[in-house]
């Protein structure tokens, strides 16, 4: 009985009309706090945080590079988990979530690459350095592109869902392997003069905007994801009767 109770939320979420309604109601609850946090975080990062003693004002790129890099990875993990749920329990809405994640994650991966490169130019003197983080980020972009390319290759949504989901899971298993291989590879070829993004101990005044932005970006992802999931659900369920009722026609 307890087990049944515990699983009802899971089954409710699996129902497209329920999730559609829930997504519609929840979106503003994520969108507005995200907007406030991101705007506040940018202001704090650009104006309030003190300049870094080593990198001067240049370090302020951290407030866009780290959140976008965090998004690129978090969205991939979300996509992989959703894909796994969809594949194992044959849950349509989970596939809709996974499919919605890919373009969001890919766009933030591009942003992380560009901001990383813009950070690298004043620090390293070149636009691109085969730094392990940037290299992993670039590989991640190819994983996203592969996922979207595979989905686009099928005419049939069901097959695209299932094949894409399998690829996302394989990718999820591979992401840590690739990441550590790249770190291992980089440790062999390290040029001594290069200033690297280390794990600096950041003072509180510098850290606070970063934490605000990480939370803001995560909420932003949730809001955009919910909107995209609604679109995906509508597309998948276009023959179902509840859609007409939900739209009031």
């Amino acid at each position: 009985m307890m087990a049944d109770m515990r699983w009802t939320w899971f089954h409710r979420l699996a129902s497209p009309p329920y999730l559609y309604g829930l997504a519609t109601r929840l979106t503003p609850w994520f969108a507005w706090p995200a907007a406030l946090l991101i705007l506040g975080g940018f202001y704090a990062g650009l104006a309030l945080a003190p300049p870094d003693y080593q990198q001067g004002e240049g370090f302020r790129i951290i407030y866009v590079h780290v959140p976008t890099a965090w998004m690129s990875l978090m969205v991939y993990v979300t996509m992989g988990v959703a894909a796994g749920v969809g594949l194992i329990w044959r849950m349509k809405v989970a596939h809709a979530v996974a499919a919605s994640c890919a373009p969001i994650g890919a766009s933030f991966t591009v942003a992380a690459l560009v901001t990383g490169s813009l950070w690298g130019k004043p620090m390293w003197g070149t636009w691109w350095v085969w730094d392990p983080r940037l290299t992993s980020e670039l590989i991640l972009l190819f994983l996203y592109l592969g996922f979207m390319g595979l989905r686009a290759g099928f005419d049939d949504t069901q097959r695209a869902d299932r094949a894409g989901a399998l690829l996302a899971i394989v990718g999820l298993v591979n992401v840590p392997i690739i990441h550590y291989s790249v770190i291992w590879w980089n440790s062999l070829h390290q040029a001594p003069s290069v200033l690297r993004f280390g794990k600096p101990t950041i003072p509180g005044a510098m850290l606070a905007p970063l934490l605000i932005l990480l939370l803001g970006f995560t909420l932003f992802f949730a809001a955009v994801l919910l909107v995209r999931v609604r679109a995906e659900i509508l597309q998948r369920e276009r023959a179902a009767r509840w859609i007409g009722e939900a739209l009031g026609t």
Partner: protein
Amino acid sequence: MSVNLLEAENLQLWRGDRHVLKGVGFGLGKGECLQVTGTNGAGKTTLLRTLCGLMVPEEGRVLCEGRDIRADLPAFHSSLMYLGHEPPLKADLTARENLHYWIGVRRRLAAAGLDAALARVGAGAWCERLVRTLSAGQKRRVALAGLALMFAPLWLLDEPTTNLDAEGQQVVGALMAEQLARGGAIVVATHQQLPGTVRAARVLELAS
């Protein structure tokens, strides 16, 4: 009441926007033959593929002797023989080699058995020829030899008489009659008349 060898309960399956299987249900006992008819695109092949577990219906289930086939697919598959409309043959292997590899993956095979099955379908004379040199009807006969070799209790046949001459059709009829006589069951998708003396216990018409 005896348990049906194969039973389908309210199978619902969509392909994109197309509602292909709209609540298909039937029961099939031992020694019975079910004929599935319907126009092209009505979902005959989809139904057969769903029955053998390749496709998963959105709703409903397939039962074998009262148990859901999903509970143990490998065991269900080893008691089933599915013959699609294209015989699964390799052009660069001889007819005999094709049978050896195809059926050998499933069952232990003896050379004598292979020869007997090939003779049975009238392929004795040309079984050492590469399949690429055979006609469509001859390929179909090789596939029938595979049927003769697999003593699966359940046969799922998709248009088994395509490309066959009158004599070939008789062979199909004889094989099917034998299968029914020994207590096996057959689901056959065809819009032609059933070959030989075989009579369908039930006819299922799929509307498109």
